[in-house]
């Protein structure tokens, strides 16, 4: 990796490798807080599923497997395109980098769009627990759908923030400073991967549990 462009140094750093170490370390610390944050939700899931496994599975059966799977594929591809973009930035292949970033933005936005359609489907089937004609009586099913709405919305918020950071990369490329600021791309990619990994856990937990 000796061919990386000379990075822009920011206060208080005086050496590139130290700054690199700090940025990656700082972002991993942030990811640790995210893991604890989502960890709380997975704890909630475990409690709900253990207390009424059959009701929980019955609720999960209604989850839209097709759209969920499409979304999983979209996000996994976006991880690949962003990684390609990040490596391309370090190798100073500007065109490849730009294509990778735009592809990531497109895939991420497509995910949100599919999620929107999925929400509409869910609502048309009255799958929000407070709706008067919510189809289940079982406690487990109510808790499954509470968890579903909560976690997918929180995940979507994370993804939207991620999209903003990726869009920032495109803007840095536009003003021509992306090359020396490859560290920004690296930490953005780390964050994006976390959002993807959370979804990778949610896919079996939400869509496969009732099958």
């Amino acid at each position, binding site marked *: 990796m000796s061919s990386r462009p000379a990075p822009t140094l920011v*206060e*208080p750093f005086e050496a590139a490798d*130290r700054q690199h*170490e*700090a940025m990656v*370390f*700082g972002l991993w*610390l*942030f990811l*640790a*807080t*995210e893991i*604890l*944050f989502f*960890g*709380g*939700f997975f704890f*909630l899931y475990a*409690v*709900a599923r253990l*207390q*009424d496994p059959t009701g929980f599975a019955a609720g999960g059966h209604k989850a839209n497997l097709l759209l969920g799977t499409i979304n999983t594929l979209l996000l996994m591809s976006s991880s690949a395109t962003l990684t390609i973009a990040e490596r391309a930035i370090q190798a100073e292949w500007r065109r490849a980098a730009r294509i990778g970033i735009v592809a990531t933005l497109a895939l991420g936005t497509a995910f949100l769009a599919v999620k929107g359609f999925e929400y509409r489907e869910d609502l048309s089937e009255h799958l929000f*627990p*407070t709706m008067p004609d919510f189809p289940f009586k079982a*406690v*487990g099913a*109510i*808790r499954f759908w*509470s968890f579903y*709405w*909560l976690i997918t919305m*929180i995940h979507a918020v994370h993804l939207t923030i991620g999209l903003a950071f990726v869009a920032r990369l495109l803007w840095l490329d536009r003003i021509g400073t992306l090359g020396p600021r490859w560290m920004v791309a690296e930490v953005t990619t780390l964050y994006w991967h976390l959002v993807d990994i959370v979804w990778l856990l949610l896919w079996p937990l939400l869509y496969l549990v009732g099958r």
Partner: protein
Amino acid sequence: MRSDDTGLLAREPGERTYLTEGTTLRSWLLSTDHKRIAILYAVSITMFFFIGGAAATVIRLELFTPKGDLVTADTYNRLFTLHGVIMVWFFLVPSIPATLGNFLLPLMIGAKDVAFPRLNLMSWYLYVIAGLFTLAALLLGGVDTGWTFYTPFSTLYSNSYVLLAAFGIFVVGFSSIATGINFIATVHLLRTKGMTWMRLPLFCWAMYATSMVMVLATPVLAMAMLLICAERLLGLPIFDPRAGGDPLLFQHLFWFYSHPAVYIMILPAMGVVSEIIACEARRRVFGYQFMVYAMLVIAMIGFLVWGHHMFVSGQSPFASMIFSFLSFVIAVPSAIKVFNWTGTLYRGTIRFSAPMLYALGFVGLFTLGGLTGLFLASIPVDVHLSDTYFVVAHFHYIMVGGAVSAFFGGLHFWWPKITGRLYSETFARSAALWLFFGFNFTFFPQFILGYLGMPRRYHEYPPEFQVWNVMSSTGAVVLGVGYLMPLFYLTYSLFHGERAPDNPHQATGLEWTTSSPPPKHNFLVAPVVETEAYAYHDWDEAPGGADETMQDERA
């Protein structure tokens, strides 16, 4: 020496400090200098301290008489909730880390700034935004759930501004996460040449341990607050037992943060006190390495004791036994620290300066608060004392007697460095003694009240408790005056205080090697460290004699 001019920012011609680099409001509000952000934090937490203090004043006024004659029961609920929320999240948690820590950590390790200066500024803005949400909740009519937000009351029944307050706490959590990440990265990556881990001042270790707790505990609070919002706003039945939710789950999530949060408040205080005692006794800290490990162990075990808040909640008795045992265990490293502070004083040349009076006050109050904590860690005793004034007295000894005394001690100790001015030692010493007296006068009677069975969170009480309540409320007046005193003489010193020399206490530590106040980038030349912290005397002058001489030769 500098000329004796007056005015906060007036300096000798050509002299440049962090205070003179830009004097516009904009240059403060957009500054990424850790020293200026520390000042921004100091001003904001002082404001919140007095708001929280005002609520406490009304509470104590109400409790002068057994009848609820000053405020209604409902107003009283809102008052103690306001007091708790403001004091915990908007004063105590950021108090030492965000002010003294922000100012001193980079100076103590010889760095130019924290690792992520812009993130540091962002953390202050998050704090302000969160504060505005919480103040909005207060101005609109308040919250009546207590600072603990127990479900299902907070989610299903309370007709108050729970959402706004919970959201404020959610946001302020990110402010402490940002500070925590910044401090950990700073200690890891920005130590100057020669500043090895075992040469770090104990204050830096305290900041490091505190930051670990902030980073690992706060996300769970964020999540718990979000769940409250989800249940109130969207009606998702998470804690509602009628729809299969579990109200106890909230208590687990809440205390998983809020017990470690006690250590977020007390570990920085321990760091401050270690610095002051070593300097004012002119001694090396007794058992430096044990002090370090004790702090790290406290930070770690602090995560495993939350269940002792739930002994009467109906949780499994086996869980209660484990939590009880671990709560006793955590007393061991805390006791090590108290013994080591005492050991540091042994054969020292003790100066009873104002910071030292605060620090010694801390050791006493912390010991009392800690030992009564052991009463509460014991299940049979806790069942009797649960939700009484004994608990209130216990945690005020730790959080007010301990953490606030240490904060004031640290503020005085580093005041000359921060402002470049000396305060009046006579006033400061009398304030320290006054506060110690006022504090005990206020809170000691509450131990007796709790032992006699007076429950907390009531605005009325049977007349036989009145004598103790009158004592406590009178003490609160004394305490209130004590808190106002530093506000006056410290402000006075800003404008009329004598110029501070670079190292007024003849202390060790890199922060004293630069000018008072420090220049924008802290040091003109990056410092190099060649000795351990607290080299106040040669090793062979230490009470152990020969052994420690050998340690010196090894080094």
